[in-house]
């Protein structure tokens, strides 16, 4: 099935979606990698709020290449997904605290994230890894950037307006489904067979 979602995504829209479905997202997406996850959670622990309200929007595992145009405004050069597995160690806590609607990345995420997605109504979608220019073409506007001086270009929070951002292949749904974990089990079985026959 193919779905077109708009942020903030209502939880009832997320619940309709299952693993293997294709999603196109319109609205607000914010990039966050390792450092930004850590910093947002640290602020929360201190009782402070990060500069972006993540609720119902797209959280994009991405460290883009950006440059300034002649008017001094930021523009996106390339913005594909980074490997999401690195964020597995704090993604569940991030979902519980900040309630994003959809996480966008590549390579899939593990059991902790799957559980948080099920309990907090969030989904995870794959954008083709490395397809940074296809992604950049769907970003209509750079709305803002936070933590640039401190974290540098790849790790900053870049706030984007996107239109029909996708195709995103859903590999974690709100029902506890995780497509990547299934393929990883199959790879493991195949590996054992191959090694036996060497």
């Amino acid at each position, binding site marked *: 099935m193919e779905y077109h979602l708009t942020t903030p995504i209502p939880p009832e829209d997320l619940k309709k979606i299952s693993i293997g479905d294709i999603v196109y997202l319109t609205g607000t997406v914010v990039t966050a990698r390792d450092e930004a996850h850590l910093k947002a959670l640290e602020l929360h622990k201190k009782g402070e709020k990060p500069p972006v309200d993540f609720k119902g929007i797209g959280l994009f595992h991405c460290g883009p290449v950006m440059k300034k145009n002649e008017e001094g405004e930021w523009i996106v050069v*390339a913005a594909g997904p980074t490997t999401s597995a690195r964020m597995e160690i704090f993604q569940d806590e991030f979902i519980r605290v900040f309630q994003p609607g959809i996480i966008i990345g590549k390579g899939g995420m593990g059991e902790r994230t799957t559980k948080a997605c099920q309990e907090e109504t969030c989904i995870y979608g794959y954008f*083709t890894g490395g397809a940074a220019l296809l992604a950049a073409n769907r970003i209509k506007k750079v709305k803002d950037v936070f933590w640039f001086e401190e974290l540098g270009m790849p790790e900053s929070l870049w706030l984007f307006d996107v239109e029909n951002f996708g195709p995103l292949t859903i590999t974690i749904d709100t029902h506890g489904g995780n497509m990547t974990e299934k393929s990883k089990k199959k790879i493991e079985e195949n590996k054992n067979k191959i*090694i036996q026959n060497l």
Partner: protein
Amino acid sequence: MIMKDIAQVIEDTAVGLLKLAATELPTEVKEVLIKSENTTEGALGKSQLHAINENVRIAESEIKPMCQDTGLVSFFVKVGDKFPLKSEIKTALIKATKRATEKVPLRPNAVDMFKGNTNNNVGIRGYVPWFYFDLVEGDKCEIIAMPKGGGSSNVGKMKMVPPGKGIKGVKEFVVEAVAAAGPLACPPYTVGVGVGGGEDMCMNLAKKALLRPLFKYHEDESIASIEKELLSILNKLEIGAMGLGEGPSVLDVHMEFAARHPASLPVGVVISCWALRHAGATIDKEGNVELHPH
């Protein structure tokens, strides 16, 4: 006077190589990715390969980096005995890395553990970009620029295999390393394997093996046959394009062997994402530049 000009030629050439590597895949990589899209049957795998190929076309026509991760920069340099410059080559390549970061642009990827991102892809402690220098006969200097993304570097592996396990132990470890990479590092992969030397040399050889053009197998028949065997068995892992189980898992496997210590069998596995990026050129002592076929 001549010296200064040649340093400038090296710098300008290296900026061009970093740009070419970031924006355009070597021909044989482009061709095998298109062939893979055409022969993949499942819709999920086909759509991933279609997106990759579309993205590669845009990168080439708009001269933009194909992936936002423009990598950590390394240079493979062969310096001829009679080539007029030696250490100045390094200086020129460091300057080129800074210039290319602005010009292409490349993402600033050199992060100091304590002082943060240097914003120019050059480390403050002198190791990045990384150089592989070799001294050769003649009066030319060959430079290959190889930017490598973090995602695929994260799945590189080294193991000191017990020598008693022999070549079977080598194959087993390669299968384990690629299976562990699974969907994480943007498959279909190209796999470089280095066997022998020491714990550091095997990794260097594995990385160097990635520079050999795809489908050009080792000149030693017995090594070539292991490369082909590994290509076939690694595809039985069924990782598929982007790890979704459809399409090729591995595009090619290249191996380099060095002599080993009797007590050691070091094996290094370096994995490239689908975007196997490198570009090379040879500069002669007068400063004439010949780009390598790309």
